[in-house]
């Protein structure tokens, strides 16, 4: 019932949004092509530190922001509402510790997933005069744009993860994104699927840009290759619901050859439905969570783990210090590589000592406090 109410509100909001001038197209052929090109590029920068790499080369001059250190950095966080953000946030704090000689203070405001709170957080940071630089991880794109624009006028701003509809930040850091995710995963399914094989797509919820684009890109490839997608269902990221849905599909179709997922949180539950029904494991696309990687290794699955790497939470801190030192940084769009874990490198990422929802592509093994800080043993 609660979900029902919230999703109705979301649906209404989305309909209003789509009708407005800010309509976002989740299935944009240009963006699709751009992501395809980015996936084919060789990243520049240190190969063992993907969080310092970038894909499309341009740099911005930051001499105007140069200041004597150490610096006061402020961070307006959208929230910590999922394990992905928890891992990322831990990365970020550890990165601050690494650069503690350059950073005098690191002040954080958690918007708890609320646009209005984040807008006032940003406002408070800007007017406090206690920030040399502001990092923003926006809760939603359109709503946060004016607040970020206002902040840009007073101090250097770095935006990462979700974007804003303005070019005013010094740099916007994010990985290739949803289209890239969809392309890598769908190509894998197409390459492994037997002729006429049945594919079930499991999605978390509608209307979230980073998730919609994952699906639109994958669906485009499925259509181009004539793949038989028997269903696309929303799981709300709920294990029990995922399992019930997969159970129903197994009942209905006898067997499912591949499961495509737009995020890995419920991938193990989906696999368990096959186990409980006594069916062979499907080809599956998960994510870099340890529980999925462990299952993949233990059961010898035909699988792939795309990532939306949590190491991107390290980059803004590194960039902040560089900007305040007046060193050029990649921008205005700092595209990070978005690796995919394949069978060959599985062993490198499976780690029994890490918690089940730890994201293996965290780039955090060299950070202080690893692994305890991330809940590992």
């Amino acid at each position, binding site marked *: *019932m*609660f*979900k*029902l109410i919230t*999703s*109705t509100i979301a*649906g209404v909001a989305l309909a209003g949004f789509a009708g407005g001038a800010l309509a976002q197209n989740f299935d944009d052929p240009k963006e699709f092509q751009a992501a395809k090109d980015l996936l084919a590029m060789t990243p520049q920068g240190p190969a063992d530190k993907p969080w310092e790499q970038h894909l499309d080369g341009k740099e911005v001059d930051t001499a105007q922001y140069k200041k004597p250190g150490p610096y006061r950095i402020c961070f307006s966080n959208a929230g*910590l509402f999922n*394990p992905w953000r*928890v*891992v990322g946030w831990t990365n970020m704090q550890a990165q601050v510790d690494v650069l503690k000689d350059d950073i005098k203070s690191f002040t954080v405001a958690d918007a708890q997933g609320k646009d209005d709170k984040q807008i006032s957080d940003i406002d408070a940071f800007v007017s406090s005069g206690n920030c040399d630089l502001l990092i923003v991880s926006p809760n939603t794109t359109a709503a946060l744009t004016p607040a970020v624009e206002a902040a840009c006028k007073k101090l250097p701003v770095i935006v990462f993860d979700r974007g804003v509809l303005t070019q005013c930040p010094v740099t916007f850091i994010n990985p290739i994104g949803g289209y890239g995710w969809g392309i890598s995963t769908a190509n894998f399914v197409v390459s492994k699927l037997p002729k006429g094989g049945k594919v079930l797509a499991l999605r978390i919820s*509608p209307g979230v840009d980073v998730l919609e684009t994952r699906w639109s890109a994958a669906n485009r490839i499925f259509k181009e290759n004539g793949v038989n997608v028997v*269903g696309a*269902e*929303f799981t*709300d*990221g*709920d*294990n*029990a619901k*995922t*399992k*019930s*849905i997969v*159970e*129903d599909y197994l*009942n*209905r179709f006898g067997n499912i050859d591949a499961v495509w997922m737009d995020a890995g*949180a*419920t991938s*193990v*539950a989906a696999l*368990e439905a096959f186990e*409980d029904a*006594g069916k062979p494991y499907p080809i599956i696309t998960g994510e870099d969570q340890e*529980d999925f990687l462990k299952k993949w290794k233990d059961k010898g699955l035909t699988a792939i783990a795309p990532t939306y790497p949590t190491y991107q939470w390290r980059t803004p801190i590194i960039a902040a210090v560089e900007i305040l030192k007046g060193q050029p940084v990649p921008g205005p769009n700092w595209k990070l590589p978005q690796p995919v874990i394949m069978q060959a490198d599985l062993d490198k990422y499976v780690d029994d000592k890490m*918690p*089940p*929802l*730890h994201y293996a592509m965290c780039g955090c093994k060299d950070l202080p406090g690893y692994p305890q800080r991330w*809940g590992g043993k």
Partner: protein
Amino acid sequence: MTLALDEDRRRSRAIEAARRINIAVVVFLVFYLAVGLLQPTYLEPAGIMNFLRRAAPLAILASGQLFVLVSGGFDLSMGSLVTLTVIGGSMLTANDPSNTWWAIAVLYAIGFVVGLINGAVVAYLRTPSIVATLGTLLSVNGAAMMWCGGAPRGYLPDNFRMFGRFAFHDVPLIKIFPLAIVVLAAVCGLAYWGLHGTVFGRRVFAVGDNARASELAGIQVDYVRLGVFVISALAAVTAGVMLAGFGGVSIDVGLGLELQAIAACVVGGVQLMGGRGTLVGAVAGALTLTALFTLLTLLGLPQPLKETAQGMILIAAVAFGAWRRRRAG
């Protein structure tokens, strides 16, 4: 004249018999038949067993919620207690099967305390239960998040998960027999006896009907209130253990379950103002909701339409129940 009277009597006897059948049972059978028509495997014994397993956690939650509703209250803290049970289970067992039994005991103890707090706030601080348990919802959820640091930290051992996941295979006739059904049957049996077969149960009805009158009649209303909230909390822990078994660890497993449990009871003819309700109704309501969710998935409707349909059908079921009760007087 006599003929006409006989006729009347016969008709009223038929109406009486029809009245005694819980409407939720009929609604459930209709929905289940629709599910079965769309997907014939649901009409096979194995399909029925799987369905019951899936419905078990909600049916258990509804059985617990029933006590609180009948006593004239609400328990909104159930969903968060489910989450706490799942998270706590993974933290306490730390993936070691030998920890399972004491971990479950600790979880029940936590549930007992939460129920006691709910009951005490309602009974002694005279706070409306909807507010009191909303507070508990928030603090229990917060406690679960603090315990695990925002992300689940462990796996659950198989012997913890067996209540929701294990099934005997190759059973004659029914092919599979999930352990969850045993738990469901046990909980329903206990709840039926508790509500319809004990003095305590009769007092729950009395308090829900008229708390002041019950007090004057010598019933210790406060104890009854404590009792119903403890029962509800213990049911939530049981459902938590089952859901942990079925789905594994996740942080939002309990989200919205308290409202589903209340909805199940309402569909089952339980009166929200207290004093009226049956266990059969509550369980049938839970089965109806589960059948409805399954039906909508099987129909393959787009999600927004599915949720709209879900809401409409719920309202229709409740309205029909109310209309029928009015007609019955």
